[in-house]
């Protein structure tokens, strides 16, 4: 079972595991679970490792060949979704 670093912003109620290229995230408080596709999993692993938003944006841009602006926008949307689902306990986009 994978845990997240303390400064990752990920809620303490969340646990996750990677299976193949896909991450499965479980919110232990709500019992809801989610699966992430390859891109989502890529971002999630960096987030769980406590990487700041700027580093994640840079990595996304390099991995998927998109501009920095596009990568930043994709990341912001993803983090917003995670916050709505209460998977993030605080905003980490800054």
């Amino acid at each position: 079972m994978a845990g997240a670093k303390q400064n990752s912003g990920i809620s303490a109620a969340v646990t996750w595991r990677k299976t193949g290229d896909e991450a499965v995230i479980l919110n232990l408080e709500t019992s809801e679970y989610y699966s992430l596709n390859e891109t989502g999993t890529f971002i999630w692993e960096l987030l769980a490792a406590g990487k700041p938003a700027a580093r994640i944006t840079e990595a996304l841009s390099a991995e998927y060949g998109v501009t920095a602006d596009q990568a930043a926008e994709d990341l912001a949307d993803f983090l917003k979704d995670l916050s709505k689902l209460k998977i993030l306990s605080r905003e980490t986009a800054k």
Partner: protein
Amino acid sequence: MAQRTPVKEQFSRLSPASRLALAVFRVRAAGKPAGIPGSLFLGLTSRCSLSCLHCKYRGGAGDLDLPYPLALAALREAAALGVPKAVFFGGEPLLYPRLAELAGAARDLGLFTELDTNGQELTFARARALARAGLSSVMVSLHSPSPEEHDRLCGRGTYQKAARALAAALKAGLVTYVSSCVFSAGPGERDLRGLLAFAKDSGAHGARFLPYSPRAGASRLPAALAAALRREDPAGFAGTCLARGRRGCAAQRADILYLGPSGDLRACPYALAGLGSLRRGTLAAALRRCGRAARGPVRPCQKRA
């Protein structure tokens, strides 16, 4: 990018590790490729501590254990094919020396694992150790809500130990089911109601009923049992080989693949037709034969003729 799928309230009592294993299993099962079974049953051993009246191994099947390298190879191929679950079966799988190691290997391959046990050897310490090693769930055999009737089938004192095993598995945080052989759906409906009530009261997460017919040849019991469950259990707490709303049993739909202790492959532990041997072939080859064989008329849930 993210999907949202709720888990039933009853599963919120599980350990975090078991709940996560269940979530991963559900995701993998939902995304499983067409034609790939939902479960690989590993008959780890023909040995058993009991001699239940209805069991196919009663009267001696020899002391045969599935060689560990073959078990591991089966798990690896199953995981690579996209099979989401491995069931440790027997005989009595708790008698298999490297069970914990196999559970860990299966977990590392991303497989959800289930132990199908008579419960006689399952103490809390053992359940906890297996959970820590990677086991996800336990299915304990209890064939009647009446201790006397269960003991008549399986031996004196076996009901009590099975009930204790159920409690032990729940305490260890494992997904826990009651598994029962049903011998008739008519007069046996009282037992069915009793078993459902017992399983729910015990805190089990579900129940599975196996239709058992002592006579070879097509039996009406599986369909009768499925119909009885639709009446008695509309919420779907219990399952049987005939899944609600689907044609044929799990073996006929090729939703199960069974590997016996000798390496033989079949559509389920009770199927009569062989699908080859893992000693000479692969799971994939057996699945191709399974697809052809499953169109036949014979129900597999029968004692050998």
